[in-house]
């Protein structure tokens, strides 16, 4: 305990975050082994892990880099379909399921990362709200293209078409992997809760270490004052791109895990609404606050299942949350009002909704 307190404040904070995730995993794992988890909740476990990774990675762009990305689901989509194609193609040659899942996630991350580079290079040179619009456009383009894509594998090898499944000419033993608007079908279920947990830990390790590294400080300096950062020799574009590509790649890996949890996946699943949902996780958890993202993603994924009767009002509630959190955390008058209110209940500090400014 003494040694723990001697550690630096950020290290301590990070260790608490890791411990929280590990404890939650162990608790769920024990409950699951004891058979006291409903099958509906068990089905939610992998999506929860995926949304946590999505929220952490989007937080890297929105909270730590300070740029808004509205196409995060697009990167997820790329990772998902790459993962599906890879895992089905390797069905014959790699027999170990975890190994195939790992390869699928890595390739999903690589493809999404490359897309991040392609989108980021033109968009990140611009200032203002352009990145938001370009990423939104990117998400729509990806959705459109995947909807018209037919991919199959057969004795003649790997085939791609944009017309229809018949034009793939797969032969008798061929499998159609992606069937245009119908999406990918016949996906092997490789994803497990443990693999989701490992992906969360890797994501946490990457993002938390990045945040406390020299590059991370450079990224946050760019967020806080671009001109000042540039004037002390920080290459703005380079660090922006770095954060954006890492964020995209993590979303790609999460997408692969997501797709390999279901037997069919359609491109429509990864639309603008999904991007907004993840943005809600990030904003509610606190921009720049990784632990907050984890909690918000978990709670907001589990809650709708519990409050089914409330379902019609859910998106409305999310909208109100977005507006209120932004108003309260950015308006001086409202902030002071909140301070008085929280002081009334003898809470020492008001919740730091803005986050990221390393105030403890």
């Amino acid at each position, binding site marked *: 305990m003494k040694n723990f307190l001697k550690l630096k404040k950020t290290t301590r904070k990070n260790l608490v975050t890791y411990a929280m995730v590990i404890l939650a995993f162990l608790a769920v794992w024990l409950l699951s082994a004891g058979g006291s988890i409903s099958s509906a909740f068990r089905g939610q476990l992998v999506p929860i892990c995926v949304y946590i990774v999505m929220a952490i990675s989007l937080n890297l762009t929105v909270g730590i880099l300070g740029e808004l990305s509205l196409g995060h689901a697009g990167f997820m989509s790329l990772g998902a379909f790459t993962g599906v194609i890879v895992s089905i193609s390797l069905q014959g040659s790699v027999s170990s399921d975890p190994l195939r899942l790992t390869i699928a996630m890595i390739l999903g991350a690589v493809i999404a990362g490359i897309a991040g580079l392609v989108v980021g290079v033109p968009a990140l040179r611009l200032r203002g709200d352009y990145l938001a*619009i370009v990423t939104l456009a990117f998400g729509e383009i990806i959705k459109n293209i995947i909807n018209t894509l037919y991919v199959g594998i057969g004795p003649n090898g790997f085939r791609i078409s944009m017309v229809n499944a018949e034009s793939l000419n797969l032969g008798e033993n061929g499998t159609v992997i992606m069937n245009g608007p119908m999406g990918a079908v016949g996906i092997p279920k490789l994803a497990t809760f443990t693999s989701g947990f490992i992906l969360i830990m890797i994501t946490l390790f990457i993002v938390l270490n990045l945040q406390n590294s020299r590059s991370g400080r450079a990224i946050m300096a760019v967020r806080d004052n671009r001109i000042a950062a540039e004037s002390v020799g920080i290459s703005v574009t380079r660090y922006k791109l770095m954060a954006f590509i890492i964020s995209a790649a993590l979303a790609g890996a999460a997408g692969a895990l997501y797709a390999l949890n279901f037997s069919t996946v359609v491109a429509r699943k990864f639309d603008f609404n999904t991007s907004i949902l993840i943005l809600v996780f990030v904003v509610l958890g606190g921009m720049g606050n990784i632990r907050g993202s984890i909690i918000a993603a978990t709670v907001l994924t589990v809650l709708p299942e519990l409050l089914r009767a409330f379902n019609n009002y859910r998106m409305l509630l999310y909208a109100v949350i977005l507006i209120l959190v932004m108003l309260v955390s950015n308006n001086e008058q409202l902030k002071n009002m909140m301070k008085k209110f929280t002081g009334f209940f003898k809470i020492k500090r008001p919740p730091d909704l803005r986050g990221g400014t390393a105030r403890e």
Partner: protein
Amino acid sequence: MSFLSYLISGISLGSIYAIIALGYTMVYGIAKMLNFAHGDVIMVGGYMSFMATSYMGWSPVASVFLAMAVCTLLGIIIERLAYKPLRNATSLAVLITAIGVSYFLQNIALLIWSSNPKSFTSIVSFDSLRLFDGQLIISSVTLVTIAACIVIVCGLTAIVRYSKIGKAMRAVSEDKEAAQLMGIDINQTISVTFAIGSGLAAVAGVLLCSAYPLLMPTVGAMPGIKAFTAAVFGGIGSIPGAMLGGILLGVIEILGKAYISTELSDAIVFSVLIIVLLVRPTGLLGKKISEKV
């Protein structure tokens, strides 16, 4: 001849984009914010006109005025409640709030009018124009849309250039603090801008629903995003730019649909945006603004 008819329907769709883009471009020019909820104001305008004609039996023209009045009011309320408290906040915070407002409007509409599409009866009822012995048919909605766009652009240019409030708008857009020192009420100017933009959105909504007669809570989202693309394409902050960008984008979309692929038409439109931003970030008619430290 089919090319000509595609071109005309492209110009018609582009005119709708142009009217929406005017709202974006004016708000962006003056309040320096991307009003993401603009697309959903279009949807509200469409529903208002639909309710007035179908349930209350109003004449189509009266329904347009009702839609404009409601949307103008809505625009002012949104600005007061959601955007005004964030005047000094970061652009990220304002943008997230605007997305929240957009989602709020969509979901309120979903609760009130449900997700079932309503079929909208066109507000224009005269016959379509036949040219070249009936080889080229231009529908009446197309004619009205193009005419409305021209009238609106001319009117708006006149207001911004010659009226007192237009002068205030130009001053606020150039330098907020200096404008305030000269005795211009910034909040009022921004409110008026929102009011004009939202009123135009109502017109665009009615025209959009007359041309594509399916009314849903999400009907405004996609045209809204495309119109913003058009505003960026033409050069954000510029009124002629919004018109040029809107019409070019409409033509690209319809020709892409006709000659390349129906499914990929949205992808083509958005690729245009990315290419424009890559080659000419300030848009076709935009001015390059040097940065002050």
